[in-house]
C-alpha cells in the first residue's frame, strides 16, 4: 500500500483568516493525505513541535497579515535547530511577488500566493511525500 503523506497546515502569528488554510486542508484530504491542522495563533515553537511529534513530511504555513517575512523563516530555522530540517516548508497567503525570492533563500521550498490553483498545492505536497518515500 502506498504510504500516507502526512502534512501539517499551520497558521503562525495572530492572523485569524483561516478560509484558505481550511480549504487547503480539505483539498489535501481529498487527495488522500493525512492533514493535521493546528488551528490559529501558533508560534513557530508550537508549529515545529507539532511537526516533530506528528512526523509530517511537510508543513504548509498560511499568513495573510504581512508577518510572513519574520514568521516563516523562524519556522525553518527552528526545524534545523531541532534537527528536523528534512521536513519541507511551504508558505501561502498574502505574499507579494518580490518577497518570494527572500523566502526561498530562507528555506521556504515553495510559496503559493493568491490565485494558486489547488492542484498546484496538492502536487507540491505529493512530491514532498514521495521524496520521503511515500
Amino acid at each position: 500500500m502506498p504510504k500516507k503523506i502526512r502534512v501539517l497546515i499551520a497558521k503562525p502569528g495572530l492572523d485569524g483568516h483561516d478560509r484558505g488554510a481550511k480549504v487547503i486542508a480539505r483539498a489535501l484530504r481529498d487527495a488522500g493525505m493525512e492533514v493535521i491542522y493546528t488551528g490559529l495563533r501558533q508560534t513557530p515553537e508550537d508549529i515545529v513541535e507539532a511537526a516533530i511529534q506528528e512526523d509530517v513530511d511537510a508543513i504548509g504555513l498560511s499568513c495573510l497579515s504581512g508577518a510572513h517575512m519574520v514568521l516563516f523563516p523562524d519556522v525553518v530555522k527552528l526545524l534545523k535547530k531541532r534537527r528536523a530540517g528534512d521536513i519541507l516548508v511551504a508558505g501561502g497567503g498574502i505574499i507579494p511577488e518580490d518577497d518570494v525570492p527572500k523566502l526561498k533563500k530562507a528555506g521556504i521550498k515553495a510559496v503559493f500566493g493568491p490565485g494558486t490553483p489547488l492542484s498546484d498545492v496538492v502536487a507540491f505536497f505529493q512530491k514532498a511525500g514521495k521524496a520521503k518515500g511515500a
Partner: protein
Amino acid sequence: MTDAEDLKALEARLKRWEETSLKDSLKALPERRATFVTTSSRPVRRLYTPLDLAGKSAAERLGEPGEYPFTRGIHPTMYRGRLWTMRMFAGYGSAEDTNRRFKYLIDHGETGLSVAFDMPTLYGYDTDAKEAKGEFGTCGVAVSSLEDMEILFRGIDVGEVSTSMTINSPASVTWAMYLAMAEKRGVPLTKLRGTIQNDILKEYEAQKEWIFPPEASMRLVVDTFEFGAKQVPQWNTISISGYHIREAGATAAQELAFTLANGMEYVRWGIDRGLRVDDFAPRLSFFFNAHNDLFEEIAKYRAARRIWAREMRDTFAAKSPRSWLLRTHAQTAGVSLTAQQPEVNIVRTTIQALAAVLGGTQSLHTNSYDEAYQVPNEKAVRVALRTQQILAHESGVANTVDPLGGSYYLEALTDELEEEAYRTFDRIQELGGVIPAIRKGYFQQEIANSAYRYQREIEDKERTIVGVNDFVVDEQPEVERLKVSEASYRAQLERLKRTRKTRDAQKHARALDRLRNGCEGDDNTMPLILDAVRARATLGETCDVMREVFGVWEEPLLY
C-alpha cells in the same frame, strides 16, 4: 383588465413565447451553460416577469423611500440629498505613517475616516508584546497608547470629521483612547461622530479576532451601548458586520442571515440589560460586503433593510422609525481581488461599488488594485477613491432614488434572499440561538463548506476568475511596494517605553485595580476603561486585566 387578468394574459403570452421564439432561438443557438448561477451559486432563471412578483403588493414589498419597510432606501431623497460617505479604510506602520495617509485621502476628497489597525492591536497586544513578533504595522496602524491615538489624529479636527474604527475585542479600550484624545482637545463627547466595529459575534463565527468568551464580550458591547446612548449620542457603538462572514466564504444569503441574526442577538442583550430599545437601536449600524454579482448584492441590501425594519418594529416593538431603519457601510470584496493582472481589480471594484450604491449604502470603501498582496500604495488608493467619485458625479446613478426598484429580477431575488434568511433564522433558533450555535460550530461549518464549494467550482473551471483560471498571462505585475519602516517600529517601541516610564505609576495601578474590580462586578466598564486610558495604561495592559477576569475563549470544533 384587472391585475389578475393581466397576469393570466401574461402567462399565456409567455407560454407562446417559450413555444415559438425561445424554442427556435435555442435550436439555433443553445445557451452557454446548462445552469447559470450567481457568485453564491444560486440558480438564475432565463427571464423574470411580473408573475414572479405576484403575491405581494408594492406597498408591502417596497414602501416609499425613507418609510417602512425601507426597501427602497432609508431617506426619501437618498443621494440627491447627500452622497454616501466616501470612507477609505486606511492604516499601516506607525501612527505618523497613517496620519499622513489620512491627510492624503482627505486631500483627495474622502469624506469620512476609517482606521485599520495592525494584528497586535486588533488582538489587544502592545507592539512590544511577544505575540506581536513580526506583526508591527503590516496590515494596519499600531495603537498601543493614548499618545499613539493623539498622533494618529494630529492636525485633524475630530469635532468635524466622522471616524470609523475597525476593531472588535479591544474596541472599548480603543474607543476610550479616541474619546480621551478628543477630551484633551476640548471637543465635547456629544459632538463626536463615528463608529466602532465592536461586533464580537462575527469574530467567533468568521474573523477570529476574539479574546474573551462570548458572555463577557457581549457584556462589554452592551456597556458601550449604554455609555454611548448617554454620553456620546452621535456615535455608532457597533457596526454589525457581514463583510467578514462573506470574506470567510459564506454565500450572500448566509451573509445576510448571519449578520441580521447577530444584530437581533445584540438587540436582545441590550433589552436584557434594561435599556429601552429606542434608546440604543438608532445607533446600531451595519457593514456589508459588496461582492461580484451585481444584482444579488443589490437584492441583499434591500432584503436586509426590509427584514430589519420588520423585526425591529414587530418583534422588538421599537416605536421610533429611527430604530427600524438599517444604516450600512459597504466595502468591496477583498477576497475577489487577484494578484494576477492587478490593474483588472479596478474593474472588479467598480462593479462592486456600483452594487453598493444601487443598493443604497450610507458609506463606502473601495479596495485598491494592489490589495491582493499589500496594504495599498498612494497611487492605487487614489484610483480607488476616484472610482467612487466617478460613480457619484459622472455615472448618473446617484440622480434618482432606488433606480432599479421594480425590476422583476431584482425584486424576485430580494424576496428569495429574504425567505432564505428566515429559514436560516429558524435553524439558528433550533440550535438554541446565536451563541449556542457558535459553540456548536454551526456558522463556522457552514462558512467552511461554502468556501470549499466555491474553490472547487474554480478548480473545476465551472466558475471563471479572469486572469486566474482563464485569460491568464505570464506576467510579473509591477507594483510599487509599500513597506513598513524599521524606523517606525523603533519609534513605536521608544514611545511605549516612554509612556511606561513617565506616567504616574500610582494613578495607573489604581485605575487598573478599579477596572479589575469593575469587571468582576456589574459596573459599566466604559468609565473605568476611560480612567485607565487617562492614567496612560496601554492597550495591552488594559486587555490583560480583562483577560485575567474574563478568561480567554477556546474555539470549538471548527472543522
